[in-house]
């Protein structure tokens, strides 16, 4: 596993940046559908959100593998941000999928805003000092 560490570090680094861009794109789409068009969540948008959850999960698993290999983030609180990023979307997916009041795109605006904020803090605390 230690031999894979440089590769895992690179993947973790680039996936975090990609995640930030994907989060911003999803937030933009959520604002467009929810706030500008006053529309509800589409099947395609929900599937894309599930895909982002899987993406964040993979990013967290890579981080966990790095941790188990002996690598440490710049600040320990990076681990908390990792867990927060993983939980952010499922919490709001629960609100949206169980919402009786429609449209419910607001949940995804909250979700991606928080996910982006957590990603930014995660990136800031991840790099070794």
């Amino acid at each position, binding site marked *: 596993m230690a031999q894979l560490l440089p590769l895992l570090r690179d993947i973790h680094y680039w996936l975090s940046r990609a995640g930030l861009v994907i989060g911003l794109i999803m937030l933009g789409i959520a604002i467009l559908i929810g706030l500008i068009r006053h529309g509800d969540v589409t099947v395609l948008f929900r599937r894309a959100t599930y895909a982002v959850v899987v993406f964040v999960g993979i990013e967290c698993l890579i981080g966990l593998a790095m941790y188990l290999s002996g690598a440490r983030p710049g600040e*320990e*609180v990076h*681990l*908390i*941000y990792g*867990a*927060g990023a993983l*939980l*952010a979307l499922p*919490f*709001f997916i*629960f*609100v*949206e999928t169980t*919402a009786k*009041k429609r449209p*419910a795109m*607001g*949940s995804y605006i*909250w979700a991606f805003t*928080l996910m982006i904020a957590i990603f930014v803090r995660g990136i800031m605390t991840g790099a070794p000092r």
Partner: protein
Amino acid sequence: MQSITLPLILSLITTMISGIFAAIVLLRWRAAVKEGKQRPHLRAWGIGLLLYCLGAFSQVVLSFMWSQVFFALWYWAGALAVAPWLGQGTVYLLWRRGNIARNIEMALLLVCVMTLPWALFLTPMNGAAWRPGIDMNLIINDVMQRGGVRAFVPVMNVWGTIALVGGALYSARLFNRKQILRSRMVGNWLIAAGGLLPALGGALIRLNLVELNYLGIMLGVILIFRGYLMTANAPDEPKTANQQRIASETAGD
């Protein structure tokens, strides 16, 4: 016996009252859920009161012994999580448009889930500053560094206090203007006063009135309890349909 001080007695009373209050509210919530009624404001208040109880209980433990776990719990529950959870109950009552209240609850839950392990395991603490019977508020800066998990406290407290106190004042004003349900109006005044008292703690500490801070925390939960009972068991019923609508929008039962 030297460590039996007035702050300890006040903390013990606060623990008991907030624990009983939390049990009453959560049992009421469970009974409502069994009847098929959604009462999310009772759940949020119940969680807030459990945290109030946990914070006061940690204060009791810390009067006798140093414990990093209880200091973290005292800080996390008392300083960070109580106010926004109590405020969340009021948000559920007054902010009924769309899913805003549910989304705010999820954001609050996410912050709490992140900050609890942060406070418990990742915050370095200096236990050497602790002495038996000392007020935790006086040593907070010596025990915990600024920044880190402490950065969440101002935002969470300001939001929670505005939601709880502001919501209670809004409801009281509504009842006063419509001249209905006098007991609910008075109850909301009491909740607003009770929500403000613990928030004034920081000012009291700066004025060197430390024991008044403990008194404020104790009186805070007593006033909220009394206010809650007055609003939940209001005897005078509204007469017109419009009055019934206002009453149902601001009821705490």
